[in-house]
């Protein structure tokens, strides 16, 4: 009973999280590229309920920011401007999941102030909005790359397991080659083979394909093992005796036994590939400005002064930990489930 809850709980958290990221346009107060050149590196906004006169407001508000006269490069709150926070405000237009048009945002502050939940970056762009929009890129990269790996690994693994013989030897030795290389070096070597100056969406797609193709070896091994044991089962032999073709056998009788492992592998691979995208972009080999991804949010931390003086730039990085924790917990619970079904 408890284990069942664990699986559903982690899946629910993950689903909610993905929903928020998918609807980034609605949940973020600004667009990922909206700049405010007057407010570079603004700290996270303080949300008040009580103003300077001691009056209590029912509706939370923020103060506008002005330059600190004593301390160059930092800000103080301008107590003249009381800017209320409102729900469902109209703002910059966006598309949800690339289809639904809208311009309503979940929350926003009255002009002229801006609400920066996680501060702003060097161009005065809202870090919170960029975090949500960046999540779209990183999560999509993770999912598609994991899909590629499973697909490619599934094909190779089932071929190797089903036909055996020299094909099995060649494919699995090739897989060992890919497993033996430290994956980051391999990723670099493949990335080096791609053009550096190409259009942004092409870079993104190439990156995903590269990341996905590299990881085929591990799922291929696992699926090969399952196919090997599955093809010896009696009902498979029976189906073969009835004259079933190889593709029919694989599709109807053998691969369905591998679905559980594929799903578990997928949940394990997605966070790995998110991290791969983050690492590549962090090193300047991935998606580039003004697009936001979790990697590009972190890459500003490479500058010493950012790390030294603007601590809130580190906040987006901390989001990775709960996301990964959820994925790993889900994979764990799935694995237990798959095992108990198989037995």
């Amino acid at each position, binding site marked *: 009973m408890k284990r069942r809850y664990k699986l559903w709980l982690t899946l629910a958290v993950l689903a909610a999280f993905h929903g928020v990221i998918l609807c980034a346009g609605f949940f973020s107060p600004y667009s990922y590229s909206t700049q405010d050149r007057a407010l570079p590196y603004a700290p996270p906004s303080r949300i008040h309920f009580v103003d300077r006169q001691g009056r209590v407001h029912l509706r939370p508000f923020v103060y506008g920011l002005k330059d600190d006269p004593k301390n160059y490069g930092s800000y103080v709150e301008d107590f003249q401007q009381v800017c209320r926070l409102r729900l469902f405000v109209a703002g910059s237009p966006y598309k949800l999941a690339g289809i639904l048009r809208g311009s309503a945002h979940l929350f926003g502050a009255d002009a002229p102030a801006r609400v920066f939940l996680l501060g702003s970056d060097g161009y005065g762009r809202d870090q919170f909005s960029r975090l949500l929009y960046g999540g779209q890129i990183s999560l999509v990269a993770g999912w598609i790359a994991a899909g590629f790996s499973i697909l490619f690994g599934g094909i190779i693994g089932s071929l190797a397991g089903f036909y055996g013989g020299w094909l099995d030897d060649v494919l699995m030795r090739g897989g060992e080659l890919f497993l033996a290389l430290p994956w980051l070096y391999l990723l670099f*070597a493949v990335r080096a083979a791609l053009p550096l100056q190409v259009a942004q969406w092409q870079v993104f797609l190439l990156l995903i394909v590269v990341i996905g193709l590299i990881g085929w070896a591990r799922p291929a091994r696992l699926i090969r093992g399952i196919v090997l044991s599955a093809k010896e089962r009696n009902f498979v032999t029976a189906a073969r005796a009835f004259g079933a073709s190889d593709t029919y056998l694989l599709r109807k009788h053998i691969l369905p036994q591998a679905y559980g492992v594929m799903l578990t592998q997928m949940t394990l691979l997605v966070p790995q590939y998110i991290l791969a995208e983050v690492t590549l972009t962090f090193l300047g080999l991935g998606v580039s400005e003004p697009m936001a991804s979790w990697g590009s949010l972190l890459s500003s931390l490479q500058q010493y002064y950012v*790390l030294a003086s603007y601590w809130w730039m580190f906040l987006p*990085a901390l989001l990775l930990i709960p996301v990964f924790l959820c994925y790993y917990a889900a994979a764990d619970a799935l694995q237990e489930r798959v095992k108990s079904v198989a037995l």
Partner: protein
Amino acid sequence: MKFLVRRFVHAILLLVGISILSFALLQWAPGGFFDSMRLDPRVSVQTVNGMRTEYGLDQPFMVRYARWIGSVLEGDMGFSLAYGTSVGPLLWTRAKNTLLLAISGTLLAWLMAVPIGIWSASRKGTWSDKVCGIATSTLLTIPDLLLALMLLLIAVRTGWFPTGGMISVGAAHSGFWSSAWDVARHLILPAFGLALVTLPVLVRHVRSAMIDALESPFIQAARGHGVPHSRLLFRYALPAASNPLISLLGFSIATMLSASVIIEVVLSWPGLGPLMVQAILARDAYVVIGVVMLSSVFLVMGNLASDILLFVSDPRIRVE
């Protein structure tokens, strides 16, 4: 002996495979080192083509590969177009730093992991074991990039550790001991980061190997004979648990190599990682291949070393 020979041949074949793979990938690469020159109106097409011919870039794949193998055997490992020297010496200076970092990281990780794992296995099921389990699984979910950034943040905020590079300005000429101390001070942070990346995996394996050993009948017999607990733990259970741990040593080297790239770049340790990133951005193909090859050699050597250790420590393998 047959076991070792087979492992050795396997390792050599693996290296050849990796070299062909990385060479082929860079051969197909659209764009090359001279592409930026082509865009420069001051450089004529003939000059660029002439340079390509001079460096042999217009030759077919097999010719280039054969030439490269020849140059590897001479210790040159190809020619770096960006640095204008042969790749070999360039790699060696960086590889020494990476090795220093990886070895100290590995030592640190095992020195921490073995006692923690044994301690946690010997108190299996108690709350301290559970706390240890939660701590390792939390550490496991923190990506290495984040870990490196956190360490950098700590260093920058507290000022306890020097950040960036390997030696301080002027420390190179201050005598052997003081410069060694200076390097050690710079080494602390990256080595610690590297150790933290592999620590959770190691602790888990040490713990489960020890639990397996502790639950085996011969330990129970020894316990029945009244052998003291500490002697039971270190003299009886630990050697029995060491077999999977030695195999793990080879695996941990692979993790170290991948993690060290990120840690070197973030904490600016002058190892192979930063060289690799620069070489990719400059499209300096032979340096990229060189770094990939060298790290594979380290990896294969690590695996071989753990095979040999296994051969020495486990009589069952020698009998086969």
